């Protein structure tokens, strides 16, 4: 349905639409937009081969700013819209843009079903732990006790943990990145782009208007090193400004140790395996500062057939076995009778 890539080369500008970007000045969304455009420009697939589908929220304005096919749908339903889209058009690179409210509050159910089906979508969840567009109510990811417009005395809900939910739904790809670290973010986006299946990426995103600093531990250049561990497949979990800290497995539990203290060496540390058991990734994804460093990077990446692939393969199989359907045969069915000109019976 589309023209060949030939030898077209793309720049960031090719992916920018003509619409003015309307987020608040300073919003973390800007850096994610920039990162996505850069990654796509590098990847060399033409803009018309992409579709960006979003729900409703500040972050969900994203598609308007991309010079691709796009839909700003309704609140919480982006993954469901994208599922139908991708089933029909497995050839399109399909990205979903969503927020913590959009994907985990009203859209929570579609999120888990999309993930368990492993529809080949790249889902970017802009987690700012707040409802931005509606001007600052707590969201499912806001920490307990959060004072917001709708919780003047502090929220009481235990927060949902996006990656736990994704892993509980048997996600084939789960990653985390931080808006303010474009280089690392771009690396994660690139990996998501190349994953066949649902790539679920949580992005810590600062809403400087309604929830400024929610992720300062992971964003701030100074705090970051001690509060975040960058996962690399096959490498031990080392972190700290001096790279002297690490995570070890202690019986059934994880523990942070200092290399060189209590006899711990680098060799004792947990080594990251993107293809390990779900429960191991579950545990890593749940590490959270200050007790643990937050894990960023690709936490899980395994192969699993994609839903859109299987839907279409099933059709191809049936056609391969039985041949294309004969429409006349179909509507005629198996049990018919003929009516001739009426003549008296018996």
């Amino acid at each position, binding site marked *: *349905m*589309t023209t060949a890539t030939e030898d077209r080369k793309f720049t960031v500008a090719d992916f920018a*639409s003509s*619409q003015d970007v309307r987020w608040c000045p300073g919003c973390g969304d800007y850096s994610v937009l920039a990162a996505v455009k850069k990654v796509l420009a590098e990847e060399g697939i*033409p*803009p*018309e*081969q992409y*579709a*960006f*589908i979003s729900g*409703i929220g500040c972050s969900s304005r994203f*598609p*308007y700013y*991309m*010079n*691709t*096919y*796009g*839909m*700003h*749908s*309704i609140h919480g*339903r982006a993954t*469901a*819209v994208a*599922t*139908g*889209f*991708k*089933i*029909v*058009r497995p050839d*399109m690179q399909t990205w979903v843009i969503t927020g913590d409210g959009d994907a985990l509050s009203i859209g929570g*159910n*579609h999120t888990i*079903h999309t993930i368990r089906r492993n529809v080949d979508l790249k889902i970017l969840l802009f987690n700012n732990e707040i409802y931005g567009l509606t001007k600052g109510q707590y969201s499912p990811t806001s920490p307990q006790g959060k004072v917001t417009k709708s919780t003047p005395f502090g929220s009481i809900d235990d927060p949902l943990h996006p990656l736990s939910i994704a892993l509980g739904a048997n996600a084939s790809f789960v990653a985390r990145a931080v808006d303010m670290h474009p280089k690392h973010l771009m690396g994660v986006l690139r990996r998501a782009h190349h994953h066949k299946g649902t790539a679920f990426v949580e992005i810590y995103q600062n809403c400087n208007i309604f929830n400024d600093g929610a992720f300062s531990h992971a964003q701030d250049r100074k705090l970051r090193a001690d509060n975040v561990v960058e996962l690399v497949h096959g490498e031990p979990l080392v972190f700290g400004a001096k790279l002297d800290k690490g995570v070890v497995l202690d019986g059934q539990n994880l523990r942070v140790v200092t290399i060189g203290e209590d006899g711990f060496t680098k060799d004792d540390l947990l080594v990251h395996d993107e293809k390990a058991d779900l429960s191991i990734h579950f545990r890593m994804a749940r590490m959270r500062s200050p007790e643990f460093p937050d894990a960023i990077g690709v936490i899980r990446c395994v192969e699993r057939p994609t839903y859109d692939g299987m*839907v*279409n393969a099933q*059709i191809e199989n*049936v*056609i391969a076995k*039985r041949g*294309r*359907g004969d*429409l*006349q045969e*179909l*509507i*005629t069915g198996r*049990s*018919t*009778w*003929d*009516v*001739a*000109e*009426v003549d*008296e*019976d018996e």
Partner: protein
Amino acid sequence: MSVDSPSHGPAKATMDLHSATVRFAGDSGDGMQLTGMQFTNTSAIFGNDVSTFPDFPAEIRAPAGTVYGVSGFQLHFSSEDIFTPGDELDTLVAMNPAALKMNIAELKKGGILITNLDSFNDQNLKLAGYSHSPLVDGSLDNYRVHSVRMTEATLKAVEELEALRKEEGKEFSLSKKDAARCKNFFALGLVCWLYGRKMDPIVQFINDKFAKKADVRDANLRVLNAGFYYGETAEIFQNNFKVRKAALPPGKYREMRGNEALALGLTVASQLAGKPLFYGSYPITPATDILHELAKHKSFGVRTFQAEDEIAAIASTIGAAFAGTLAATASSGPGVALKGEAMGLAVMLELPLIIINVQRGGPSTGLPTKTEQADLLQAILGRNGECPMVVLAAARPTECFDIAIQAARIAFRSMTPVLVLTDGYLANSTEPWLVPDVSSLDPIEVEHPTEPNGPDGAYLPYKRDEWLARPWALPGTPGLMHRIGGLEKAAETGNVSYDPSNHERMVQMRQAKVDKVAEYLPEQEVFGQEDAETLVIGWGGTYGALREACTMLRAKGHKVSHAHLRCLNPFPRNLGEIIKRHKRVLVPELNGGQLCMLLRAKYLVDAQSITKIKGRPFMVTELYERIEAMMTDKTNGK
């Protein structure tokens, strides 16, 4: 029931009838649906016009013998054109006391009642709520009652087979319980004799179905024959009946159920348009069968998606439409309610998709297995904002096929979601269908732009054509990248716009686009309009009953005509004129008067409602009486 068929008086030998209505009723486990369908089949093959109406219990498999476990299948067969499954029953087969209890009220006076006497034991009588047997207390004196020991006769027939097998030195695999389960074929054989039906198609069916289970096959065949011979030999029946062939247009026919017709229509539409069907749906009675049927159509490229809920179902359908294919979703009452928000999005996006509502009894969960027409106003007016959508309604089971194709044509031509209304009655009823020749069907034209349509190489996704439709650029097309969404959009560019005048213009534009559909749809037809003073306006699954009632009324000299709407939004362009030609407008509906309200508002005519909200179709006679009463009531009308 046909108008002038003589009621069954006493007679000998074979009596000619124009038509007859038979209902098989029994426990859910008694196989009544199968029995009814087989009788239908043989009648149709014989050449009658037929119309059926199954009536399921809401429970999957309620405890045996209870009234809420009763399953029924009604069949009307005739030597004339018929449109309904019949009102009152000429013959009722009641396999147990509960079935008798639930159905006897509809047996006409002097009608034939056939019961399985073996099931009228104390326990079953109690379960049915009888303190003593109705067979002996005189309460059935108005009927010609034939109590037959069917279970016993069935067992005996099977025992003979068993003996035969043993003689041949073979094993016999049926237990006594299995044997007793054949008794529906006894009833079927008996009724075949009663109406002089050939049993060849049934024999064929049994042979096919139980090809790999010789004992079951032969047992059923024996029992079937036993039933037939019982009628012929037992002294209890004074005569049997004959309903001659109907004068149907010649050709190849098949039985067709509404839901199946809809599914076939969607698949055919997709082939006519060259756009493989995407069908996103979440199971709900009575719409689920459409999913079941379409899931089989993989060799036509049909992609069915069983979504996690109705919202995902329609959302995925919207995604599929954006992706550039024929996309449809279906549901019923509660599920359609959930789709409301997304339907609004579809209207805003101006994408072609089909939303089907197989209506059932409401409100809320209501009466899930029963029929009703109470979602019309929801369909037309039930969304937030000014949110117009084309609304079609099928009038008879086989028409579901045509309406699906028509919906696709409109959706593509006008770039609009189209809502199709059917109902539980249409969904499950069958009638003979003259199988069309697919090569004779017009292709459905769909265009996709490949070049920019605006100044400076810009693509204007909301630029409009003569039908006010916007272009449909296929994702993947170079140079036509664009973004659509639920916020109000600027005319032509489709960019987000908060401009007040633009909003008003776009609201009017969306309305005008829907209104314009009337320009290319056929004009409204009227049945029997020449001299009519009273116009009966209907829509949807009541067609058959209205048509038969009006035929009866006209036969009795009443000046009445009948217009049945297939497009509820917009109304046919000549409807106003038609209304003006009549002195009185009556609107029978299976709801509280919803179409009536729309007609009153639009045409300022004092249309009067005839309503029924019982989860059941209109009966022809009740319509006849109510219309007649209102026609002669001087207090209504203009």
